[in-house]
């Protein structure tokens, strides 16, 4: 388990592993404790052993005084950070005369002084629009062969609605997002549209609200657009995008399709809710959250720093046109089933853990 906490693997060399804090996150304090271990990897990238030795951290280009490990663990109890982006890396040495050298891969911590906890955020799932179950059942019928029975279709719609709620609440685990029984003051409503929205152009939309200044907002989710993804591209065909651009197959079980569609819709619901909590505000450090393309994760920004913010839709706040269908349904690739549930990247998650607390 401890090996897995090592952030990056260097083959055939020592690696200085940082255990805390998590790389590419926001911190609100002026100093942080940084700790980790010295790991040895073989030429195949396999972990060999932990070692005692010495570590030298470099923060924003300045080397800090070296520290020695204690019981194979190194600790910098109080590293001062400047406001904004801090680039941290380091070196390790061990063995006779400290001749075996290793590196601590550069990572980023962003210190913010403008973010505050806003307390509990209640959320209500509004499924009251007409035709919602019809649309959900259509998705099952369009994407499964043979057609499910009437009883199965009824259960499918109920299970998807339940699955969407579970997905969203899981996505916000660790924050103070709680389920509300009705709309009202201080409640964010996720409103699902059925028959009242019949075009294919929009999965959802939400007011962007950096720092969650207004807790009583509404995100709109347009279910017909999800049905469109399950409709054949050619009349009478079996070539829907859901079945050709993802590992979903007409022979899948009903339970599998419940999971696919719950994830598909749940991801958009969590995504829109995220906008209303402030993700991913445009503007650079101390103004926004480095977002672009209409408050989304910026694929270009990660080219400039050792960070990981965009992943083709696998990250919750990736921009719509760049979010692939297989990622939206929680699959790693387009052809073979392998679950990869959408999630917030570490940076966005750290923002939520500060603001929605």
């Amino acid at each position: 388990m401890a090996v897995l906490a090592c952030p990056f693997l260097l083959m055939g060399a020592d690696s200085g592993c940082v255990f805390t804090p998590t790389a590419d996150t926001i911190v609100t304090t002026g100093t942080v404790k940084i700790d980790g271990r010295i790991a040895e990897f073989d030429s195949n990238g396999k972990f060999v052993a932990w070692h005692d030795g010495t570590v030298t951290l470099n923060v924003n280009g300045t080397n800090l005084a070296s520290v020695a490990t204690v019981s194979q663990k190194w600790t910098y109890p109080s590293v001062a950070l400047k406001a904004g982006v801090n680039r941290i890396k380091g070196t390790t040495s061990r063995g006779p005369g400290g001749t075996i050298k290793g590196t601590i891969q550069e990572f980023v911590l962003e210190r913010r002084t403008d973010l505050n906890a806003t307390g509990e955020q209640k959320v209500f799932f509004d499924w009251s629009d007409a035709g919602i179950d019809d649309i959900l059942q259509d998705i099952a019928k369009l994407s499964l062969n043979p057609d499910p029975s009437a009883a199965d279709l009824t259960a499918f719609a109920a299970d998807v609605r339940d699955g969407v709620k579970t997905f969203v609440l899981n996505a916000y685990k660790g924050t103070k997002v709680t389920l509300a029984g009705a709309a009202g003051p201080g409640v964010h409503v996720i409103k699902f549209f059925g028959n009242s929205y019949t075009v294919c152009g929009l999965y959802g939309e939400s007011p962007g609200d950096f720092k969650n200044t207004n807790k009583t907002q509404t995100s709109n989710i347009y279910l017909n657009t999800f049905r469109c993804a399950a409709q054949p591209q050619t009349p009478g065909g079996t070539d829907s995008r859901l079945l050709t651009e993802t590992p979903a197959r007409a022979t899948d079980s009903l339970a599998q399709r419940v999971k696919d569609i719950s994830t598909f819709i749940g991801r958009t619901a969590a995504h829109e809710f995220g906008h209303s909590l402030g993700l991913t505000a445009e503007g650079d450090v101390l103004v926004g959250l480095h977002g672009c393309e209409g408050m989304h994760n910026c694929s270009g920004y990660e080219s400039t720093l050792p960070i990981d913010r965009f992943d083709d839709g696998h990250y919750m706040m990736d921009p719509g046109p760049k979010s692939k269908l297989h990622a939206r349904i929680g699959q790693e690739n387009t052809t073979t089933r392998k679950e990869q549930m959408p999630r917030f990247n570490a940076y966005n998650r750290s923002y939520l853990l500060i603001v929605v607390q």
Partner: protein
Amino acid sequence: MMTRSIAKLLLILSMSMAAPCSWALDIPENGDAVNYQLGASSDVVVAKFVRRDNNGYSFEVADTLRGEVPKTFVLQEDGYLRGYGLRPGQSYLLYLRKIGQTVTLGTSIHSIQPVATNEVPAYKEAIGSHVANLGRRDALKPVLKKQAESSVQYLQYSAVADLKRLQLLDKNDVAELARLLESRRIVDPRAKVLVIDGIGATNSQDFAPLLESLATNRSEPTPARGAAITALHKLNATESLKKIGPSITNERSPALIRKLLPAEAEKLRQ
């Protein structure tokens, strides 16, 4: 039916116009490409942005590529335009809709592309050919394949996205696109990702050297390099992955290492 549906979309978008803050839209994948945008709009123009004032964003039409809108028109703030950064004097391709006398964007900022003066003929040709062949998949295919070599990056991207969206790509077409990529005639970052994704679905390791070179080329955009690594995984190109491994890990980009070592990255997330 279509008109009613469009009216509803516009009604929903107009709800956001009244909103004082910025809104964020989640549109389908490649929903900013030509084929999708033509479905979400009725008129397409190249127009010069003149100014922003209390009335909204004023434009002067230079070229009408589809439909007809007044020579000058004003787009109202819709919560997204504010952050788009329209520049006075700059020309833009705009996918538009009319509701009565009001002109709006098809899907807000996703319906805008900046246009250089020398790019106008390419836009005219591409949009005109696409409109003329809408709904005729077989006729669109050669049009889009030609467009994939366009010197205009948005048109390159759109062509590849639309070929994929309309399911017009077979193995030979992917090979042709791969050659365009290799010869650097496809340069748009998003077009590159789409072509590389297509290569990954071919089950042919013939493309492994190209993918290796893309994955390790630091001047390539990170998403394209990541797509190349993913494609090598899809092709089970174990030797290639071994070959590029040291270069990628030494480079220390978390995004690329995640693509190279997905299993390890998954464990790290837990």
